[in-house]
């Protein structure tokens, strides 16, 4: 903030310095012209300069008015905070043209205004290449006029001709004032550049430091993620171990003990041993059921035995058989394979929706369709039931939504038919699931 203020102050001082030079230059020209005329030296002056002197009022009017416009433009440029790059570029070009105008109106005698504009534009232009372009133009402009690299076909009277009217002492005073102002302007410009670029250096250092910190934090976060995964794995393993110990361990222990006992009894009491073996078989069956139950807690068992397509066929057939509802099922044209969690979600949503249709809507017809488009699976279930005046908790819709949210999908539902529009009878549920990865089309196994 202080740096910006310093830069702003420097620009202001440069503006005043340039104004002083232009006023000084115009004053010398105009006043000297009239002094020459008053002392009847016009003819001699004209024969020494051999050029058309411009109308005395023309240079002050042109140069000062253009300079004023330049000042107003550079001031407004910062006030207006324009974002559009084209408008910004336009303003820069306008400023450059005004600068050339000022210098040309001073007969290319003084070109320090180019430095002022350069300082202004370097700060304003963000685009690096554009900045370089403007820099090049302005420096060339400044240098060509300042050091007279090429003498322009200039038909105006040189400033020195006006100075030569005065006595050597007065002349030296004037040239002294001039060089103080001109070199002051250059000095201010150098100061400005130093301030600007050291400021930019600091800014760059700060950004680099921040970047390093960010990278460190990122690495740490990755480590944490790995750690978390490992811990989750361990917890799950422990749970499974506990489960196995609780159910399978218990049952197997019983079976082993029973089997040992049966072995011992075989020769003594074969009938008793046979009973024992029967018990062992019974408890083995129960153990199996336990194992199944614990897996069932994780997955629907039909899905465990069949592919999704077959499981859905079975679900629909069973539902039709048990409820007598007419179900129109349009399966996917191509059998796709999904990740287990996706399969679970699809299965559960269809199961829940059909149950809802019968339980709450008393529907006699259900239309179920699956479509696959652009990696999105759409499940549409439409019934001809009563619909629902007020949705109540417990319809399982929230669970469906939660399931879908985990997969990044969406759920829409409502009365009527989506195709006919709301208000019609019946209820519809539409679920869209973005499938994570396009699976290879594979044969239905």
């Amino acid at each position, binding site marked *: 903030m202080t740096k910006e203020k310093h830069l702003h102050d420097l620009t202001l001082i440069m503006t005043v310095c340039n104004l002083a030079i232009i006023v000084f230059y115009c004053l010398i020209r105009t006043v000297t012209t009239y002094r020459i005329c008053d002392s009847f030296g016009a*003819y001699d*002056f*004209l024969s020494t300069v051999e050029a*058309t*002197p411009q109308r005395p*009022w023309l240079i002050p009017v042109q140069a000062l008015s253009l300079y004023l416009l330049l000042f107003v*433009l550079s001031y407004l440029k910062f*006030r207006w905070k324009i974002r559009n790059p084209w408008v910004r570029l336009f303003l820069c070009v306008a400023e450059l043209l005004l600068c050339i105008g000022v210098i040309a109106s001073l007969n290319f005698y003084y070109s320090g205004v180019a430095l002022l504009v350069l300082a202004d534009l370097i700060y304003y232009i963000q685009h690096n290449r554009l900045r370089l372009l403007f820099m090049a133009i302005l420096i060339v402009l400044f240098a060509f006029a300042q050091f007279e690299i090429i003498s322009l076909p200039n038909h105006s009277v040189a400033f020195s001709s006006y100075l030569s009217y005065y006595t050597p002492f007065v002349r030296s005073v004037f040239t002294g004032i001039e060089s103080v102002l001109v070199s002051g302007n250059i000095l201010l410009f150098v100061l400005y550049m130093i301030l600007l670029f050291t400021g930019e250096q600091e800014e760059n250092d700060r950004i680099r430091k921040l970047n390093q910190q960010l990278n460190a934090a990122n690495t740490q976060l990755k480590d944490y993620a790995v750690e978390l995964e490992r811990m989750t794995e361990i917890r799950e393993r422990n749970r499974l171990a506990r489960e196995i110990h609780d159910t399978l361990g218990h049952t197997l222990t019983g079976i082993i003990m029973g089997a040992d006992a049966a072995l011992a009894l075989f020769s003594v009491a074969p009938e008793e041993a046979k009973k024992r073996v029967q018990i062992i078989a019974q408890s083995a069956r129960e153990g199996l059921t336990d194992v199944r139950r614990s897996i069932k807690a994780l997955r629907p068992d039909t899905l465990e035995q069949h592919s999704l397509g077959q499981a859905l066929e079975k679900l629909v057939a069973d539902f039709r058989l048990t409820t007598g509802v007419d179900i129109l099922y349009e399966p996917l044209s191509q059998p796709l394979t999904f990740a287990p969690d996706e399969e679970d979600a699809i299965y559960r949503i269809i199961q829940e929706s059909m149950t809802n249709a019968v339980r709450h809507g008393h529907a006699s017809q259900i239309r179920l369709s699956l479509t696959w488009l652009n990696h999105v699976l759409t499940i549409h279930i439409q019934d001809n039931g009563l619909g629902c005046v007020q949705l109540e908790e417990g319809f399982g819709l929230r669970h469906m939504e939660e399931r879908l949210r985990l997969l990044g999908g969406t759920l829409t539902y409502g009365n009527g038919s989506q195709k006919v529009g709301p208000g019609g009878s019946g209820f519809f549920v539409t679920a869209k699931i973005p499938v994570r990865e396009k699976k290879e089309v594979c044969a239905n196994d």
Partner: protein
Amino acid sequence: MSRGAHRWLAALVAVLILGGIVVAIAYRPGSTLTIGVYSGSYWGTPTGDCYQVVDDAIARFESEHPGVQVEYVSGISTDSYSEWLAQQILKGTEPDVFFVLPEDFNLLVSSGALAQLDQRMDADSTFDPDAYYAPSLSSGVLEGRQYALPYESVPTMMFVNKTLLEAHDIQMPDNNWTWDDFYSICTQITDVDQHQFGVYGYTWLDALYSNGGTLFSQDGSSCLLTSQPVQSSIRFVQQLNDLNEGYQVTSRDFDLGNVAFRPFLFSEYRAYQPYPWRVKKYSSFEWECVCMPAGDQGGNVSELQTMLLGISSRSRNPDLAWEFAKLLSYDESIQRELYSYSHGISPLRAVAEDDEILSQLHKDIPGDGSGSFSREVIGGIMNHALTVPKFDGYDQALTMAQTAVAKVMNSGESAVSPLLEPQREINLFLSKN
């Protein structure tokens, strides 16, 4: 943009529009044409109403261009006219059309004050450059470009002291006389003891021009100081000076009637020839004028001085300015008035060789006039008069040459070798220009 920004923008637009209006007003073609006129005669001869011709032209111009006003500042003498004009140029208030004194022409062109006229002359169907005598028109040319129109021309003539010639029984020379005639008359008349001399004020440049030579090449790129015509001219003037046995003839000697010849401007002749001026000018002798004597390689030719009319290169009414300059320079009835109010010769053939004008000239000459200014003589003088080709740095180069020649003549050396060095210097100066 905020509210403040809108206000600023509005202010900026207002300033721009205001500035535009000011510029438009400042540069609009006005209805007032200004002209720069000097008072009195440039040729140093007494005149009656010096503004009469200009006033008549203005009256006619204003009646032909209703709504246009032509203005001039009166009372600027010929001596201060150059300075006045330079001041106006410096202040940027120079007139649209102004008279250009012959000696100011180069300076005004090189300072860019004069507009180029070639395009206007070509574009104007009512303007024919051939109506002018070529030497008069070409005096407004610098480096091949026309910058001014001729207004009035005055050739240099040789004044002859008729009384002195008659006293020596010498016949008045005619307009076809030569250097030999000139030299033999001077030899007969010169008698240092009696304080009688052949000629006063006849320079090597006068001799050069009548010897078919020029000092500089046509394009002004080289000096011809060691060329044959220049050499023989210097030698001829040296011979004439040698007759005086070292005595420096003065203008007083001529005024007292002791010198036979003196080069003078034609305007002097026109001004002082009619009665009573002729008696007032030289009461002690009768006088007459003839063309300059012809050299071996030249004719009866002299340098032509021409008053010019220029148009300001910054004029806001360039079209009106051209029309007015054309009226003054090209209009026959205006040009005719010159013979009543001034003493030059019109640069227009049709006017200078007009019977009425010629008879007006004859009327001024007492006695039979002996046809000294017949149509042929006037036409001859004007057609063959010499206009020195002008270029940048002409005045300085001429001064350098004159200094060098004066040095040679004073030393009495043979002319060629001492002039080689100055010629080299002048050529160097010209090449830098």
